[in-house]
């Protein structure tokens, strides 16, 4: 599979800080891959994604997105290919109504109004929020706001979606709807998903997990390998429920998802 993002020896230090937030990181992300980036607060996850989108300028190293090297000139082209859904749903809502907000990215690209109306409708339909078109953001739930944020990102047709702890402020129901929406987009539209998360269940949806610690990339593995690791706490993660249960029951330590575990439990009877 072709690389959609390749990062080489990337470093970044915040102006007011002494140690680098991202330290000599190299990472290849395949097209159509769902990758989770995990790690404690301050481990450099969010900084890394901001560097990829050119929101921060790297101190050293190179980033290429879809074959294009990130430079001052290619910055805006690359931003069109990447959509980011941020953590706080209230802090990323620009428009006065749902449809205005979805149109914001299109307005920035100077798209004709007729086309905008079509694309906004289509994007809202994809996230199942078409009935809320004229509502103001204050009247929506957290999950609905994040779905609108996703619609705003989808409207401009990106190849990559970055979820920057997008579900961390949502209730379980909101989290469920947002994640199933992302799963759907990933499966049916072939998008590349980069998700920064502390939620172990969310990493289970991805194909690959990278762990960051103090600005370094320390592990690159599959979710199944992650879940059987001993000390998940040091990376800001809890053990998944199934692993905890198996430990209590003294099952073999290999990772199983909930369904596999259920069938195993049935056999006990």
């Amino acid at each position, binding site marked *: 599979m072709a690389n959609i993002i390749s990062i080489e020896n990337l470093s970044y230090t915040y102006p007011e800080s002494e140690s680098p937030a991202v330290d000599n990181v190299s990472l290849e992300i395949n097209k159509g891959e769902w990758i989770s980036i995990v790690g404690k607060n301050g481990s450099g996850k969010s900084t890394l994604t*901001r560097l990829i*989108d050119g*929101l921060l300028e790297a101190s050293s190293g190179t980033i290429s997105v879809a074959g294009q090297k990130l430079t001052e000139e290619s910055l*805006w082209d690359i*931003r*069109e290919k*990447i*959509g*980011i859904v*941020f953590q*706080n749903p*209230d*802090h*990323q*809502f*620009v*428009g*006065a*109504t749902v*449809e*205005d907000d979805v*149109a*914001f*990215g*299109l*307005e*920035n*690209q*100077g*798209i*004709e*109004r007729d086309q*905008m*109306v079509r694309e*906004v409708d289509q994007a809202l339909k994809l996230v199942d929020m078409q009935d809320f078109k004229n509502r103001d*953001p*204050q009247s929506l739930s957290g999950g609905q706001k994040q779905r609108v944020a996703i619609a*705003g*990102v989808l409207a*401009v047709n990106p190849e990559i979606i970055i979820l920057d702890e997008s579900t961390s402020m949502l209730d379980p129901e909101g989290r469920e709807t947002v994640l199933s929406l992302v799963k759907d987009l990933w499966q049916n539209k072939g998008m590349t998903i980069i998700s920064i998360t502390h939620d172990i269940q969310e990493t289970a949806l991805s194909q690959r997990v990278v762990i960051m610690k103090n600005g370094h990339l320390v592990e690159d593995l599959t979710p199944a390998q992650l879940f059987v690791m001993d000390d998940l706490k040091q990376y800001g993660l809890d053990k998944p429920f199934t692993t905890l249960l198996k430990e209590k029951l003294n099952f073999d330590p290999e990772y199983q998802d909930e369904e596999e575990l259920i069938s195993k439990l049935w056999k006990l009877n």
Partner: protein
Amino acid sequence: MDKLIFGRYLPGDSIIYRLDPRGKFLITFYFIGIVFLANNVASYALLLAFVLFSVYLSKINIGFFIKGLRPMLFLIVFTVLLQMFFTPSTDPLWKFGVLQLSTDGMVIAGYILLRFVVIIFISTLLTLTTTPIEISDSIESILKPLRYVKFPVTQVALSLSIALRFVPLLIDETVKIMDAQRARGVDFGEGGLLKRIKSFVPILIPLFVSSFSIAYDLAIAMESRGYKDGEGRTKYRQLHWKKIDNYTVLVIALLTVCLLLVRSY
């Protein structure tokens, strides 16, 4: 916060709601200007009739407009009393020191009262029937010519609409901070004026800090969605000037002519 009628939008639908906000905005200001043309009973009656007819067309309960007077009540009463008792007259009905009551004084006071009522009613009508975002769009559209003198019209309009969009969020934030401070024992309702003002400092500082952090997040989000500097942007929300808006302009022109005819020179 709910009591404030003046400056609040009331969702609804009527001919007044459907008028182009640019027209409504300009006509309101124009009307406030021509109020000062009126100088006799007939001209004031004309203004009042126009305002009441507009209120009728809006299908909004007149109670909302009367409530709109409330915040201005002190100013109105004060001005009216001032006119009533301090208008100099050669033939006062009643006199006590510098105070005097005369027919002239009472008539002028009545005019002042009417002036307040029509001005407040018409501006309440504008804000009740026009969403803040429509008003900000109108301002953008009206200021458009200033682009030629390098005034950043689109940027200012976007800031304005974002500011409006964040008002409810900041109110939520304020309530949260107040609750947090109350939990620490701050009492906002007690003490003298100075003490009460002082108790707002622990609200303002955290509010200020959190506004900055919201602004930072929003700026990052906007940039990630491709916002550059407002140049070359298209607009999703569009205003449409319709036939009915032409008629409204005609009506207001007619009103001006009538006013000029019936006022005394």
